[in-house]
């Protein structure tokens, strides 16, 4: 059992970055995730593991630093919040196209525009449907606790390198700013150059040796036949993710007649709403997607044969609800309930919405 501490989500993330054997963190300050870089700066990662910590001149630069470092087979990560993530979209698209394994953390705040510094889940579309230009997907993990802010860092790198694809940890201001108990994992040593050569030497730009062809990292191909082939290759990766990487958690679904679908911070609120509703005799459960892409379509489709209706609870005007609807294929009513602009729905409100939108519709 590892050390147990009381930490903010952002701090647990930062500590996990050092422990995960990351080679470089590149970022730019933005509320509500500035604690990440502040924690890292105070923790002296250069001394602990040799990890590079660099405050970039912009999010544009930061994401491109990830491009450069990730393309050498090193573990590179950045964290930001919504407006900063928007700035990074160019780089993320290039990274997805060039198949570079990196991890991007979005501690979401309300938008659009400068919006608010308070929590929101209004970047779901951006995270799961692409975000930048071109046909691509990130693999998106949605932590709902401080513990998962820590645990998902090594998981994200495993997945990023398994698929040579950018992975996003989609958190929000609530998970980032709250403190909970966290059990830290044992530090994972940074990869040696030999390890990188052995495992990633067939693609990473680590210096061409005479025994192999040169490695090129690029998203460009001006020959349509080849570019189409590349796109189809990316599609195969996404299909493999859909087969192998769907993760979700179910709470009290065994006897459920109704279902909340909620991820991240709103799943926590839904958990409380279940307690309140069940105290009134309403049999409601929760499906919490842990991977937002790939989305747990199959399980939701199965649950559509069991429950009478689903309520997608989100800190947005209704984004994930579209994926829930696509999953259940109009078999049962699916509705959305959410608060936005930094407002957080109370568990009581969620129960009320279940009654008015689903049970008594």
């Amino acid at each position, binding site marked *: 059992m590892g050390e*147990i501490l*009381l930490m903010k989500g952002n701090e647990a993330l930062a500590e996990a970055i050092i422990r995960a054997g990351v080679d470089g963190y590149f970022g730019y300050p933005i*509320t*509500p995730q500035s604690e990440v870089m502040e924690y890292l700066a105070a923790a002296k990662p250069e001394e602990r593991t040799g990890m590079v910590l660099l405050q970039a001149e912009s999010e544009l630069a930061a994401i491109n630093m990830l491009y450069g470092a990730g393309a050498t087979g090193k573990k590179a990560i950045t964290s930001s919040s919504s407006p900063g993530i928007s700035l990074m979209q160019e780089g993320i698209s290039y990274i997805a196209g060039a198949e570079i394994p990196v991890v991007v953390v979005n501690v979401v705040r309300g938008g659009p525009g400068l919006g608010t510094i308070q929590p929101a889940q209004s970047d779901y579309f951006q995270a799961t449907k692409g975000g930048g230009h071109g046909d691509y997907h990130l693999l998106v993990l949605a932590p709902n606790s401080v513990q998962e802010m820590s645990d998902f860092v090594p998981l994200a790198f495993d997945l990023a390198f398994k698929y040579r694809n950018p992975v996003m940890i989609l958190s929000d201001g609530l998970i980032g700013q709250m*403190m*909970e*108990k966290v059990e830290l994992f044992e530090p994972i040593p940074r990869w040696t150059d030999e390890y990188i050569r052995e495992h990633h030497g067939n693609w990473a730009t680590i210096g061409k040796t005479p025994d192999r062809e040169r490695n090129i990292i690029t998203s460009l191909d001006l020959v349509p036949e080849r570019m189409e082939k590349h796109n189809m290759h990316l599609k195969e990766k996404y299909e493999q993710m859909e087969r192998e990487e769907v993760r979700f958690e179910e709470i009290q679904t065994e006897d459920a007649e109704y279902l909340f679908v909620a991820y991240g911070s709103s799943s*926590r*609120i839904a958990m409380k709403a279940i307690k309140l509703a069940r105290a009134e005799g309403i049999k409601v459960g929760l499906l919490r997607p842990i991977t937002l892409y790939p989305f747990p379509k199959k399980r939701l489709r199965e649950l559509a044969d069991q429950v009478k209706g689903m309520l997608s609870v989100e800190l947005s005007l209704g984004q994930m609800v579209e994926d829930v609807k696509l999953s259940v294929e109009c078999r049962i009513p699916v509705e959305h309930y959410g608060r936005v602009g930094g407002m957080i729905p109370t568990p*009581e409100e969620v129960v009320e919405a279940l009654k008015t939108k689903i049970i008594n519709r």
Partner: protein
Amino acid sequence: MNEEIIIAGFGGQGVLSLGKILAYSGIMEDLEVSWFPSYGPEMRGGTANVTVILSNERISSPVLNVYDTAIVFNQQSLDKFEPKVKPGGLLLYDPNGITRHPERKDIDIYQIDATKEGAALGSTKVLNMVALGAYLKLKPIVKLENVHKGLLKSLPERHHHLIPLNEKAIGVGMEKVKLIHKAEHVNAK
């Protein structure tokens, strides 16, 4: 055991650190804990509040609408959170600067003159610990030895020499807490 607490006051009154010490004490007691602050510009001189939950079970929502206990240090917070205490719940407040006192009849209301007692101890900074003592006297959900461990964990080492003063403040709070009103119509729960 599931105790849902809101702590609120001005920034600088040690609201967030009171919550943190309570949460850390909970960890030492082997409880599940959560701590969620108001954050942003309002931290800088305005009102601050933090929701702290201690529980035997996995904690669901870290953000709540109603609370078992409210610990408040200023008028704004009293006005905001008095209506949010569950019937039969506890409202503990510092009368310093309060002009409109709590009026509810269905909750327990206690006063602790934390600002004054803190000053008497030589540091207004420990007013939050005076309030913690008062709270623990009324709801001894964590043992004092675990509060000590919580202080050790949550205070940076350079402040460890202040622990005896903090513990003294807790003692004062336990001693000086004053009943204002005992709840009528408490639900048998």
